[in-house]
Each structure stands twice: as C-alpha cells, then as structure tokens.
C-alpha cells in the first residue's frame, strides 16, 4: 500500500482544496460536549479530540430520512411518478471516521447489496470518499480487536491517516484509486514517507473475548435463559440501533400531502421497538424485549456471518455508550463465552 506523509499544518489546506472542488465535506464537529459528523464549511470547524463520535457516519450513505419517490395524481386521474433521482446526490468526502466505522461499510453494503441492489444506498456510496483516522486512544467501551478489527485497520477507508511523531503530522495510507485521486488534489502538500511504522502510534485495545467461541455458543442458545437475564433492564428504545454504524433496519412511510400527492419515505427503524414485528393480525412473533434482544445479537453475530459472510458489529462500542441503562455489549458478549 502506497504511503505518504502530510504535516498537520497542511491538512487544512488539503481539505480546503478538496472542498473547493465542489465536494461536500463531512467531519466530526464538537458542540455541547457531543461530537458528531456534520457538513463543514471550513476545516477549522473539525474536532478530532474524541475517542468516538456520538453518531456514526452511516447517515452519509443511509440517511435517517430519505425520499424514495414522489407521486402526483393528475386531473385526468393518471398518476405521475418521480423516481429516485441520484443526480441530486452530491459528491462527498467524509473525513475523520474511525477504523471501526469504516469497517462497518462492509456489513452495510452487504445488507443493501443482498439480492436486489438498493439504489439510493449504492448511488450514495459511489459518490463518497472515506478518509479514516486511526485511533491513538480508546475507552472502556471499545472492543474492535475482539471482533476482528484493529485501531489502525484500513479496511473500508479510501485513505487512512494515522497521527505520527509527536502529533505533528499524519501518515497517509492510500487504499483505493478514489483515495489516490483525493491525495493528488493536495499536490505538494503530501510528502514521501519512509521508515514510519504506524503501529507505534496506535491505541492498545484489549481483546475481551473469543468471538468464534461467542458465536458458537450463541448459535446454540436460542432457547436459553441468558436473553431474558441480559435484557431485563433494557428499556426498548432505539438508541443502540440508531448510533450503530452497521444497523440497517428501516421503515417505509407515506408522506401524503392530500389531494393525491405525496412522497414514499424511508426512515431508520430498530428491531428493539415493540412495533417492529407486529403483524396486522395483532400477533407479534417477538412480543417481549428479551426476544428482541436475542434477535439483535443473533442477527449481528450469527445470521449476518451465515448469509453475508460478515459480522454486523465492528466493536465501536457506541451502543454501550449511548444506552440509558448501560447495556454494555462487550460485557454481554463475554457472558456467552462462559455459557
């Protein structure tokens, strides 16, 4: 993999050039103590002091609310449809996503590309360049190394930056052709890099459990009591799913504007919600929170590996940080190992 070096002082100039090119730039911005990905007008707004952003960057490819098509009934009774318009999707650069977020693009793409390709998702993905930044710090919720990830993993990023030296510059690993094109925009801002090992500058994320063992035990625990004991305190909100970089459940809604016009809308949904599997008959195959918790874990650690050859979890720990009642995922997964 080709490597370059960019001094910290040049980073803003490079991102400025990237923006001047007409691309939208999304990057972490801190406000009221929470850091989230926002569209930035200047690289000065960017903050990289966080271990992890409150929300992942998945909204760039899978927005929380998206119009799929619109319809209007004409006076003669005919209905005209306006299909999803990919030309309205802007070229975008996401700067500063962590390796666990970049790794989550694979399970997301797996879900949206399974069977029939999802047009809005794939059209958006085609227009995004992801610039990852390795982790030099972690916290008590991080567990990427337990689920096959790494604080310096380049998987999913088009370019991966790692803060090196005493923080005066970044090692840039150019992963894809899209990444190369973006580095070329920077021209002389990027210097040659030799003899720099990023391993010296990465966070040490402890391995919390053997994921193979967890998956094996979990697959055999469908009828077990563990789901009930673990989920007793779960409140059934959607915080974990909505902050998760790999959760892809959505609902389809109708924004009817009266007189025969409206939009078909896709918005985020969560398997933790009691309404998620409620049938029109009134029957709900997952009527209790423990059944919904079981679904959440089995989907990520059994069904997705079986069907898509990828786990639905990259160990970012966001679900555990966001949970109002501290449903700590790494801790819960560890309990399966000892079943």
């Amino acid at each position, binding site marked *: 993999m080709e490597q370059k070096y960019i001094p910290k002082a040049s980073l803003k100039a490079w991102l400025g050039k990237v923006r001047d090119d007409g691309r939208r730039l999304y990057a972490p911005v801190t406000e*009221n*103590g*929470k850091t*989230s990905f926002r569209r930035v007008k200047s690289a000065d707004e960017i903050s990289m002091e966080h271990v992890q952003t*409150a*929300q992942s960057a998945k909204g760039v490819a899978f927005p*929380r*609310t998206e119009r799929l098509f619109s319809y209007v009934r004409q006076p003669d009774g005919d209905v005209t449809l306006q299909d999803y318009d990919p030309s309205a999707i802007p070229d975008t650069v996401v700067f500063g996503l962590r390796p666990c977020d970049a790794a989550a693009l694979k399970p997301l793409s797996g879900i949206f590309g399974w069977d029939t390709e999802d047009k809005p998702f794939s059209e958006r993905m085609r227009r995004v360049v992801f610039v990852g930044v390795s982790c030099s710090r972690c916290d*008590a*919720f991080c567990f990427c190394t337990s689920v096959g990830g790494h604080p310096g993993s380049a998987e999913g990023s088009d370019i991966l930056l790692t803060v090196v030296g005493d923080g005066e510059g970044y090692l840039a690993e150019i992963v894809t052709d899209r990444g190369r094109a973006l580095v070329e925009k920077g021209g002389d801002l990027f210097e040659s890099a030799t003899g720099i090992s990023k391993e010296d500058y990465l966070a040490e994320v402890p391995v919390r459990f053997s994921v193979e063992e967890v998956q094996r035990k979990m697959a055999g625990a469908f009828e077990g009591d563990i789901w009930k004991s673990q989920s*007793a*305190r779960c*409140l*059934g*909100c*959607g*915080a974990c*799913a*909505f*902050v998760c970089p790999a959760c892809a459940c959505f*609902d389809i*809604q109708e*924004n009817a504007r009266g007189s025969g016009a409206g939009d078909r*809308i896709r*918005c*985020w949904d*969560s398997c933790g*919600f009691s*309404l998620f599997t409620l049938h029109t008959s009134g029957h709900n195959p997952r009527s*209790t*929170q*423990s059944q919904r918790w079981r679904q959440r874990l089995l989907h990520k650690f059994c069904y997705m590996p079986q069907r898509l050859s990828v786990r639905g979890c990259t160990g970012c720990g966001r679900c*555990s*940080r*966001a*949970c*109002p*009642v*501290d449903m*700590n995922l790494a*801790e819960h997964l560890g309990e399966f190992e000892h079943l």
Partner: protein
Amino acid sequence: MNELRSKAKELLDSKAVDLFIGYEEGTRLPRPLIATSAEEADRLIFDERCTGNLAVYLTRKDLAAGGRKVGIVASYYAMRSISRLLDENQLREGAVKVFGLTQDGGLTLFEAIADVKQYLQETPAPSRQVEDEWAKEIAEMSAAERWKYWTGELSKCFKCYACRAACPMCYCTRCIVEVNRPQWLQPWAATMSNMEWQLNRVMHMAGRCSDCGACGAACPLGLPVHIIAHKMTEIVRQNFGEPTETGNVLSTFSPNDKENFIG
C-alpha cells in the same frame, strides 16, 4: 449498602417480593439491577450517583405485572412517579415496597404507597436549580432566538424514543406516534416532526410529569428535552396547582379552566 442488601435478600427469600429493583455498579455509572434472587441482590449498591428513576420498570408487563410483588429503590422524584402511577391505577397498593431516598441521605422503607404520599406531602422537593436556570435562560430569549435554539437542538433528534422509554409515565401500550390511522404525527426524523413529537410527548405529561429529568438523561444525543417537560410542569403548577388523587390537568375537565393561553 449492606443494610439494603440484607433487607432485599430477606424480602426475596421470604417471597415478600418477587423482584427487587435497585442499582448495581455499571461501566461508568451505576445501572439498574432487577434482582430476582438473594444471590443477585448481593450486587445491589446505593450512593449519590444513583439518580435515575427506576419507577419506569414498574409498568413493564414482563417484569412487574400479573400480581407480582416488587421492592424498589426510589429517589424523591421516582417516589413522585410511583405516587402518580398509583393514582392512575397502574399500580396496586400492597404490591410495591419502596426504599425511598430521604432527606437524611439514607434509604427509608415505605411499606405502602400511602406512606410515600405522606412523605412527599411533608417534604419539599430537592432543588432543580440547573433546570430552573436553563428554562429561565430560554424564556428570556426573544421569540426568534428561542425558535432558533429549539429548531437547532431538535433538528439533531433521530427519534430513537429513549426519552419515551425512560419515562415512568409513558406506559401506553400504543403510543400516539405509532398510530397510523390517522397518522397524528410524522414518524420519521425531521426538524418539524421532531418538534411535533416532543411537544406531544410533553403535552401528554401535563400534570403527570414528576420532573425527574429521566427523558433528558436518556437522550443519546444530549438534547435538553427534559427542559421542555420542566417548563411545562412549572406552567401547569402556576395555572392549575398540584395534581390530586382524583385527577390531573390532562385527565380532568373543569368549566372553570382558564383558556387564556389559546390564541
């Protein structure tokens, strides 16, 4: 703490309660513990970091329903929720034993909710200074500034409904936002529909909200949604007084109700 554990174990062992709702150590802060055995009750803790409102678990059908008896640790505001849940026929007197956090900083066992009510009547509510000042700051904004503030905050909401899930008074089996014939509220996340949701949520709390702040504490995005509830509580108190056992401002109608807020 040892006293709490031994009392909880005693209640569980003697089947005086079927489950005991308290706190255990969590990753960063204490978290809820729903203990069903003396062994689990050994994990109970209680200190000044235990500020949540555990009353939310009392209406959970898979936990406390079906005649099960419950022991629960409750802050002042959680006791207020318990009192109001009884008024709304969501709890049975005799089914709940409350270990209430009293003014001396210790836990006092209230065998009946009537005793909890008595305590609440005799004891002033703990200060809500932070919330008071926050609400005042917002009230002093111009209408344009206030609109900018709330649209800015609520534009971030992604409708995970953690605010609803954490609220002891949000016990509807089907929430207004989940009804789609007719669709009262737009269920997707967008600034205006987020605002509609929060206003509807808070309006349904009129005269019922215990002002515990659990909604705001639960928000994964740190949005100050509890300040809306706090402000509403203040307005309701000023205009309608305190709720009584026979009803609150949401559930009762009086021909003498003022309507000067309309228009």
